[in-house]
């Protein structure tokens, strides 16, 4: 199962484009070169996804000016940061950078860490259309009561929130986040994710978000760029790209749609997407708001008839688009539902017994749906 690398050039607003067309040496101990030639939308969150050592961090460091580019160009929303004969040093690039290990100045209080950014942002002021207000950022990241503390007195999650706030205070035109949750334990991850989602909703700054977590990609990203050994495997909108990746147990589909109605008696809500409807657990989200859900391949089974006398609520008509069979017991079946895609993980034996073929009409039975946002 391969999908064509889909560049988004057609869909991209020409005024807001991030062009990454460069080569760089990836890390010190790796023997490959990072080779990029792509355009990303200059808005929303673009996740840079890949295994460790695939060149994700090098990509961010090159964009920030922290690592040398061998050749090529970096243009962000019509501003050239790097090209033949031009290379802005890091401190002249309007980026906010959030490091993996929540790096703060240990010799300064939280408030002074924020001051450090704000003072220098003012020096570069005037070039920014709508500077973000400090109080708004402190509020957004929920760090008001941490301001007088020293970094050493903060938890990992708190440190990372302060680091994000500080990166925002610089008035960046591009926010670079290098696995901001990777160094945190599960509890602190769950503590930060809502802040990142709020950030996404409330602040109009494009973000390059490096991660190797499918969960973070599905919850946060609008676009997805997948790196493998320094080269772009695929890039495009998160739904289609994610459903095309080999992710083992995490294989699945991300669907975008809206909650249409709720069933008070059974505490269910009806999620409608381009291609069908699913009953999901009602967690009290407002109706008609944009919603994103994830359906894991292992939670989808197939039948030739609509489910009868089954505990499974959701049974959707679909068409078999591709079947990926390996040597192992399980196969991945890619299903087309209108404009959307679902992935089902079934045994190879079932593929044979049901006589599944490309183009066949089947029913996808969805056992579980996770609402992402």
């Amino acid at each position, binding site marked *: 199962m391969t999908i064509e690398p889909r560049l988004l050039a057609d869909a991209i607003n020409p005024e807001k484009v991030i062009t990454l067309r460069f080569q760089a040496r990836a890390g010190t101990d790796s023997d490959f070169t990072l080779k990029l030639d792509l355009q990303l939308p200059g808005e929303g969150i673009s996740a840079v996804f890949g295994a460790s050592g695939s060149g994700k961090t090098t990509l961010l460091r090159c964009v920030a000016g922290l690592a040398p580019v061998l050749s090529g160009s970096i243009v962000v929303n019509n501003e050239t940061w790097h090209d033949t004969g031009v290379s802005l040093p890091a*401190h002249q690039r309007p980026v906010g*950078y959030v490091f993996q290990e929540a790096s703060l100045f240990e*010799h300064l209080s939280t408030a002074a860490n924020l001051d450090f950014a704000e003072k220098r942002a003012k020096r570069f002021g005037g070039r920014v259309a709508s500077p973000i207000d400090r109080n708004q950022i402190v509020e957004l990241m929920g760090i008001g009561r941490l301001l007088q503390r020293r970094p050493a007195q903060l938890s990992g999650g708190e440190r990372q929130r302060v680091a994000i706030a500080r990166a925002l205070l610089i008035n960046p035109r591009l926010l670079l986040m290098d696995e901001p949750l990777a160094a945190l334990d599960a509890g602190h991850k769950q503590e930060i994710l809502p802040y990142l989602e709020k950030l996404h909703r409330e602040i109009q700054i494009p973000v390059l978000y490096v991660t190797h977590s499918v969960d973070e990609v599905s919850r946060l990203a609008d676009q997805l760029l997948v790196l493998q050994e320094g080269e772009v495997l695929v890039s495009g909108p998160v739904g289609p790209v994610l459903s095309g990746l080999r992710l083992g147990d995490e294989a699945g589909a991300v669907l975008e749609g809206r909650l249409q109605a709720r069933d008070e008696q059974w505490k269910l809500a009806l999620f409608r997407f381009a291609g069908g409807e699913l009953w999901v657990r009602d967690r009290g989200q407002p109706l008609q708001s944009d919603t994103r859900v994830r359906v894991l391949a292992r939670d989808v089974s197939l039948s030739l008839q609509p489910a009868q006398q089954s505990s499974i609520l959701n049974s959707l008509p679909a068409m078999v688009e591709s079947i990926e069979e390996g040597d192992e017991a399980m196969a991945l079946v890619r299903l087309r539902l209108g404009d959307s895609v679902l992935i089902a993980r079934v045994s190879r034996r079932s593929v044979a017994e049901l006589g599944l073929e490309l183009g066949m009409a089947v029913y996808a039975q969805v056992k579980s749906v996770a609402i992402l946002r």
Partner: protein
Amino acid sequence: MGFSPADLDAISLTLRLATVTTAILLLLGTPLAWWLATTASRWRGPVGAIVALPLVLPPTVIGFYLLILLGPRGPVGELTTVLGLGTLPFTFWGLVVGSVVYSMPFVVQPLQNAFAGIGARPLEMAATLRAGPWDRFLNVVLPMSKQGYYTAAVLGFAHTVGEFGVVLMIGGNIPGQTRVVSVQLYDHVEALDYAQAHWLAATLLVFSFVVLLLVYSLQGRAASFLARGSA
């Protein structure tokens, strides 16, 4: 009984020498230590070794070469003569030059360690927060290496106060100009004036002890601060 006027002269000269030397060393040592801490150049090893030489060489060796270098026939001596400065040996400034060389590692090494201890991350962080190179040095490197500067200043000062061999070689023994405390002490002993010698010797002993106590307690506090930070 107490310090003789000549002793007091020697003490004030010594303090003046140590102060000037320390100031010069902090200025010279900062870029040198920064280079040693951050460069990937193949000259790093040789330069580091040259800086450390005074730690192992007999002071008389350094004094001897400086005497030749700075003397009327030495290249530096010829230069200073052309510049109308005369020759440096047997003057206060000759002593300063000798002390700077001799105490160099005691200033450069603590600074180098402090700079290396900062690591690349805080500087990268500052760069992405729009801090240029000078801004980064003044507002990140200096405050973060405060401890290193205290240690460097105290050790540089104390080591200059304690020098003897280099002073004797290039400074000689001119009262009020090059006769520092350690030389004055030597004179007392030569003259079998042990009572006077005791005063100076004990003063140097107490001074050195207090200085080292200061250095170790500073470092101790830094260590416990770090332990708190990582807890």
